[in-house]
Structure formats: structure tokens, C-alpha cells
């Protein structure tokens, strides 16, 4: 690949490494595997860069990261995507602000939220992460996940219904 293409790739894609890593952490359940998968995904993205075109670079990169996370799981585990991120959320010193650590209540709330999201099935968890953390539009999410916008909307609605129940916010039990 020409040096010029590598430079274009770096300029477009590298600003989104934090988002790529955040998505991988939530999909894989731990930071260690997330690092390996993100590195692999970025190298794949470079190889497929010819096919990038003109779209939103973040959604394009995150789609590859997401696919790599799913194949990683197919290779390493037969079951659905892991839920162990909740353990990570309980451990100290992992990307938590010191301010938060001084407030036990906040920190137990954070753990509860981390656990509730980690316990969602992968297809719900990914749309929640893309919407609530990455603040993507439904159109961008549909690019990343590879499903129609209507499906994004219904998955988000169902994911939120589950979360309002598991976090005790629900007015009524989810059907």
C-alpha cells in the first residue's frame, strides 16, 4: 500500500481508536482481549481501506471492530458474548476517575450499571453502547451493526426496557 494511503488511513481512522477500544471492551468483556482485537481490526481495516469510499470513517472502522469482536467470540467461545465486564467494572484502578472512587455510592451505582449492561445479550448491548456512549445516530448504528434502521430502533427499545427493569426504574414489568 502506498505511503499516501497509509497516511490517509491514519488521518481518518486513528482519531477513532478510543471509540473502537471502548466498543471492544464492552463486547468482549475485558481490556486485554479488547487490545488484541482492536489491533487486529485496525490492520484489517487498513487492508480493506480501498473499499472505504466516502462514508463516515468512525462507523466504517467500528463495523470492522464489531465484526472482529464477534469472530473472536466464535473462535474462542461457543456461547454468547461474555458478561465478565461486570467483574472488570468492580475492580479498582480500571479507567475510573479518582473523584468517582471517593464516592462509594456513585461507585456502586456504576458497578450496577456496568453489570446491567454486561448482562444484556450482545445484540442489545452493542446498540446501547453505540447509542449511549458513542452517541451515534440510528443510521450510523445501522452501518456498524449491519441491520436496517428499523431494527436498530426496535433493538434499542427492547434493550432499554430490559435495563429499566434490571436497574429498578421500570414502572411496570417488561413484557
Amino acid at each position: 500500500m502506498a505511503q499516501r494511503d497509509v497516511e490517509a488511513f491514519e488521518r481518518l481512522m486513528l482519531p477513532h481508536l478510543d471509540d473502537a477500544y471502548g466498543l471492544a471492551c464492552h463486547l468482549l468483556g475485558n481490556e486485554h482481549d479488547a487490545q488484541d482485537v482492536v489491533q487486529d481490526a485496525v490492520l484489517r481495516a487498513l487492508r480493506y481501506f480501498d473499499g472505504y469510499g466516502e462514508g463516515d470513517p468512525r462507523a466504517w472502522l467500528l463495523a470492522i471492530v464489531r465484526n472482529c469482536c464477534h469472530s473472536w467470540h466464535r473462535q474462542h467461545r461457543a456461547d454468547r458474548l461474555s458478561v465478565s465486564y461486570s467483574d472488570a467494572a468492580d475492580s479498582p484502578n480500571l479507567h475510573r476517575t479518582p473523584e468517582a472512587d471517593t464516592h462509594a455510592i456513585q461507585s456502586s451505582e456504576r458497578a450496577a450499571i456496568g453489570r446491567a449492561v454486561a448482562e444484556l445479550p450482545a445484540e442489545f448491548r452493542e446498540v446501547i453502547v453505540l447509542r449511549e456512549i458513542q452517541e451515534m445516530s440510528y443510521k450510523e448504528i445501522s452501518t456498524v451493526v449491519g441491520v436496517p434502521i428499523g431494527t436498530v430502533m426496535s433493538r434499542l427499545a427492547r434493550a432499554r426496557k430490559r435495563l429499566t427493569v434490571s436497574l429498578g426504574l421500570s414502572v411496570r414489568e417488561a413484557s
Partner: protein
Amino acid sequence: MRCDECRDLLGADADGELMPEESNAIREHLASCSQCTAEHDAMRELSRRLKDGLDRPRAPDVLKARIRSSLARPTLPGASAPAPRAWRTSVLAAGVMIAALSATASYAVARRGTFEPSVGEQVLSSHIRSLMPGHLTDVASNDLHNVKPWFNGRVDLSPNVPRLDSLGYPLVGGRLDYVSGRSVAAVVYTRRQHVINVFSWPIDRGDASAASMSTEHGYHLAHWRAGGAEYWVASDVSEPDLRRFVELFERAGGTTDPK
């Protein structure tokens, strides 16, 4: 609008994904339906909690350095991506990185027609090299009374090592580095998972300048002169975090003691 229709659309409404007429229909329905209003409030509360409470991990410096070094490797036709764990052959990775940096340096030479990459480029290279496994610190300690004396006799100034732990920037150690043709002190702090390198070396006492920031290859650099020393700071923490670090460092630092 019926209640079940309204509830199906509450999330999309909060996300700003509905047409204005749909949003208006929901507004009208909520005005007359306390159950759906309660559902609407629960949805907003959920969104607030997720935004405040969900972890937003940032890619560690080491991962970014690894990715940059693998992108810098010449991609041969048909070359396959390395196995995910291949990076642990860190010696190779470090070698590739240094080769890449030399390439960058040669490029800089060609571009400028000079033999020296700029000080900022050298600082950035040293910063990236320090992220390679085993290169970060020669003396690893979060106690300034261990780190500061370690530099005695190794560099020609006693570097500032302010205590910033309680402000969110713990000290992790120090090392000897090489910038602008001289040995310099590198004092290492962290911010969450990110490394902050503070390089310093002595200059004329009268020579002072306020901090200026720049960004190179996704890393932020800060540079200032004060108290008889030249300072360069390199990191990939967010720019506001680095600005704050520089302010705290300058405020807490006092003056250095050139020898």
C-alpha cells in the same frame, strides 16, 4: 395516539430520531396520560444513568503505539496481519518502531534540508519509545524522594518532581533520555491509563516562555521555559487533561536547581 404506540416511540423520540409530527403526537399524548409520562421519565432517567455511569475506556498509550508501529511497517503485497498476540514479541515491535522513527526523522531531514529533526519531533520519538515494554522508567517509584535523587550525577540539573497524586496525576518514576544531543531528565506521570512524560534540561536562567501546546500524530506536546529549565511534555491524554497537568506542574514546581 395509543399508549403502546407511544411507548414504542419514546426511545426514538429521546434520541431525536423522529419526524416533528411524530414528536408532537407523543407530546400531546403525554399531556393526557400519566402512565406513559412515567414511562417517559423512566427512559430519561435510564439514559442519564447510562451516560454518567457506563465505563468509557480510552485506548491505552501502549495500544496506540503498537498500532502506529504496525501501520508504519511496510505492507508487502499479500502480507497477512500478524497474529493478534504477535505484538508480544516486543523486541521486534520496538525495532520496527525505531526504524519507523528513523524513517520519520529522515523524512524530516529531507523536508527541512537540515540534519536535525525538531526538538518536538525528538521529544515525541522519545515518548513513543518509552511506551515500549521495559522502556518507561529507569527508577520506578511513586515517591519523589526516590525519583529526584536518582537523577543526581546523571543529568546536569535536579529536575522538578512535584507531587500531583492527589490531583489525579500519580508519579510513576523517572528515566534518563536523550534529546537534542544531550542527556535529559524524563519524569513520568500517568493520567488514568495514559503516560505523561516530562522532559527537562537546563538553560539560561533569564530565558522564560509561557507554555504552548501542539499536536503531532495524535499526541499532545506542551513546551515552556521557566526557572532555568526547558520543559517538554508529551502524552496522549486529552488536551484539557494535559493543559491542567501543565498548570498544576508549573504551579507546584517552583524552580529547579541547575548545578
